[in-house]
Each structure stands twice: as structure tokens, then as C-alpha cells.
């Protein structure tokens, strides 16, 4: 693909073209993705469920109730709660990490690379 370089004699000029082109393409690409997930996917999922309802009336009770629960159970409020929990978790983490390390090191004292020690670790893991 080296021919592309030949198009412009001045690298700076080509640089500007690549800058503009590149940004447009990146934006274009991610806008495409945005549109797909914002509009296309929900439609497709609805269509899929609709198709299923028509085709497979028999297993209705089980199949349909399940995804609905999935959607409702995990709403924004839960998300917020988890967000807080994660925040706290990330804060605390450091102390715990150190504690774990200490215990681990104590257990591992003097356990270099013998095959027998290999075996020991193998059992523990």
C-alpha cells in the first residue's frame, strides 16, 4: 500500500489530509457503532423475541418470563448501589492486599524450586 504515500509530495500537506480524514473516519466509525447499539440492536432483539413467540408457542411460559426478569431485576438503582460498593471496595483493597500477601509469604517461606515443593504448591492451588 505504499502508493498512498506518493499522492502528495509534501509530507506536511499529507499530514493534514490524514489528520482530517482520520478524525472523520474515527468519528464516522464510532457514530456508526453508536447508531447500531442505540437503534438497530433493540429493534433486532425485539424482532428476535417476536419471531420466537410466533414460532415456538409451546415453551412460552419458561422462555419469555426469564429474560423479562433479567431486564427488570437489574435496574439503575441497583447499579448505583453497586457503584458505591465498588468505590468502597477499591478504597479498602490496599489493606486487604497486604494482609493476603503477608499470609502468603509466611506460608511460602523457604519453598524454592524443588519438584517436591512444586507438588506442594500444586495441591494448594
Amino acid at each position, binding site marked *: 500500500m505504499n502508493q*498512498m*504515500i506518493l499522492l502528495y509530495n509534501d509530507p506536511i500537506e499529507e499530514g493534514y489530509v490524514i489528520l482530517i480524514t482520520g478524525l472523520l473516519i474515527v468519528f464516522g*466509525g464510532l457514530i*456508526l457503532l453508536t447508531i447500531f447499539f442505540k437503534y438497530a*440492536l433493540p429493534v433486532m*432483539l425485539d424482532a428476535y423475541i417476536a419471531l420466537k413467540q410466533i414460532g415456538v408457542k409451546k415453551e412460552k411460559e419458561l422462555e419469555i418470563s426469564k429474560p423479562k426478569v433479567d431486564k427488570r431485576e437489574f435496574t*439503575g438503582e*441497583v447499579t448505583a448501589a453497586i*457503584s458505591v460498593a465498588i*468505590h468502597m471496595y477499591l478504597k479498602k483493597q490496599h489493606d486487604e492486599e497486604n494482609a493476603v500477601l503477608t499470609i502468603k509469604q509466611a506460608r511460602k517461606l523457604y519453598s524454592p524450586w524443588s519438584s517436591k515443593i512444586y507438588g506442594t504448591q500444586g495441591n494448594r492451588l
Partner: protein
Amino acid sequence: MKKIILIFGVLSLLIFARPILGLNSNALNDKTTTTLLQTHEEPEETFISEALGGIEQFYEYTGFANAQAGHIIMIIIGIIFIYLGIKFDYEPLLLIPIGTGVILGNIPFVAGNQTGIYEAGSVMNYLYFGVVKGIYPPLIFLGIGAMTDFSSLIANPKLMLLGAASQIGVFGTFLGALYLGFALPEAGAIGIIGGADGPTAIFLSSKLANGINILADGTTVKNLIGPIAIAAYSYMALVPVIQPPIMRLLTNKKERLIRMKPPRAVSKKEKMIFPVAALLLTTFISPSALPLLGMLFFGNLLKESGRTERLAETARTKLIDIVTILLGVTVGASTQADIFITKDSMLIFGLGAISFVIATMGGLLFAKFMNLFLKGDDKLNPLIGAAGVSAVPDSARVVHAEGLKADPRNYLLMHAMAPNVAGVIGSAIAAGIILSFLG
């Protein structure tokens, strides 16, 4: 105090033994010839003098005899990397392997013994293969995909645009590098530092600035993999230092207080479809980014399919660990002083710093721009725009921390993850574009 003198005595003895032994590392070849002549001329010399000759001869091959200022400087830099990783917890999984690699790569040695990373047949050279051929980065991306939850992006796809806006850092730096006189492919590789994504930077520089390709004017492209990788990882580690001032500069208190509504819940099906759809759309747009984006979304599919947890687990633990170890130590070792300490490296470090600033600003300002069109609780907290640079998840954490400073109950982490991962996708697309134009 006595002890200090003792130690300094021993060390200086070793380093200053050079003149005493009548040797000079620069005059190595001359000397060997001389030694050779001497032994032939004096066949009756005693055994002890021969042993001394052996030590003298061996001394020439030690690091003490061959150390130059460059080696010492780079070794100190390696130690600083390790120190930063341990002391301040700045990306230790990267800085510690890279720092050790920098030390390994700058142990002074005499060429010809298959020791150095640039010597064919050496172990380091074999391990470096995965960097030179761009094999390690896609494997890292596979693991990253298998550990990334794209929910927040699926819930709020418009935040994808913040990841796009940050790519101004890539293309702006590319232009800057051109102005500084780098050739087009070299500038492309340097620009990607602004993507704030180590594996992408290594992948692109291994394809464009690898010291092998021939430019249109017949000259060979420079090998900039080392400096670019080091710059990318260094600044990624320094994100908690670089970003906050810019964030405070470009936003006012009121903007920083904006609370965003919690993202909607995302169904399992959406999470399964995401990697396949995103894979198709992004690689159709930028096929040259296939190795990166293909592996990223492949890893994510392994994670989300619900059937291949076993493979996803391996990809995001042992496989990525092994590749991280090998990648880190070889990228570090590629900074061999005689190849690394150049004006180009300094320029690349400068451009890299600027690129992070531009990218952060791009994301922030675009978030403010989007707010012009959004109403009510749809408005974005512009801080999350800064997370568009990638540097996952450090950048999102910095945003979270800044948000907490303004309002201790405003949890931005989940919102910031969306532009954060979008920044990765955006940078990979940008790398593909640059590769298509200049590859």
C-alpha cells in the same frame, strides 16, 4: 562511616582498575592484539602471571570495563521505573517488568557473545520477536477483551463519541512529529502515543517504525519501537499526575458537580451481540486494525458467551500474564543505551507528553460541546471526557477521584468507563487508519 569508605573503595577499585591494568575499553581491539603478541613472545612466563593475564583478559569482558555513561544513566532510569511502580503503585505490572528490562538491556557487554537483545541468536532476541512482529499486542488485547465489561458503553452508546474526540491527540501529535522532521511512517507511529494504549503503540510502531521498511526516498525507516513503547507506558503510568490539572483548568465547579443518571441495565443478549457487532463494524471500517480489534472482541465474546468461561479465564489471567512479562522485559531491554539515547528519543518523549495533554483536552471539550445539545439529566459531567484517552482504568479512576473532590457522593466511575473503553476502540481504529495510509 568506615563501612561506606570500604564499599566505595571496592567499587572504585573495580571501575578504576582500567588504567591500573593498562586497559581502556575503547582500545579493546588493540589491547587484545597486544596481549596475543605478548603471550607468544614470552612463553616462559610463570603460571601465576598467566592466571593474572586470564583475569586481565576476563576483566575486559566484564561490565566494569565496558560501562559507559549511557549505560549508567539507563540503569538508573530502570531503577527509577521500578521505584515508581513499587512506591507509588503507578501501573506496577508494566513499570516493574519494563524497568527490569531497561537494566537488563544496559548491562555493558562485549558484542559477539549472543547476549544483547539486538544480537541474532540471543535469548532476548528470540523473546523480542513477539514485539518486533507485533504478536504480543493482539494477545494482550485478547486478555483485555476477556476482562472488560462493555456494559456502560452499551447502555449509553453516545459516550462512544468521547473516545473518538480523544483521537485528536493521535493525529495532532502525528502532525507535530511531521513538523519536527520525522518521516511519514515514523510520525504515524509517534502519533499513536496519544492513544494512551501501550499494546496499540507497540503494534503500530512494529509495523511502521521498525528499522526494516524502506521509505519512498530509498532510506530505511528508523527503529523507534523502544522509545515509543517506553513513552506510551511512562505517560500511561503518569496519568494520575498529568490529567487532574487539565481537568481543573477546563471545567468549572458547576460542571464538575453534574450528576449523571445511572446507566440502564444491559441484558445478557446485548452483551453477547456487542463483541460480534462491534467486531464487524470496526474492522469493516479499519481492516488494518484487525489483529487488535479482532482479538479484543474475540476475548470479550469468550467472556460473554457464557459457554467459554474456561477459555476467557485463561486469556485474562495466565495468558496475558505470560505475554505481559515477556513484553515488558523485552520492551525495556530494547532501550540499549547506544540505540536509545538519541535526540529522536528526546523528541518522542516531548511529543508524547503533549499528545496526552491534547487527547485529554479533546475529550473534555467535546463533552462540553455535546452538553450543548443535551438537556436535563441527559447532560454529561464533562470530567468523563478526560477518560476518553484510554489508559484503562486509571484514567476513569482519576475522573472518579476528581468527581469525588467536587461532590463526595457523585460516583462517576461507571460513567467514565464508557469513554474509557471507547478510547481503546478509537485508538485501535486510528492505528488501522494510519497503517492503511502509511503501511
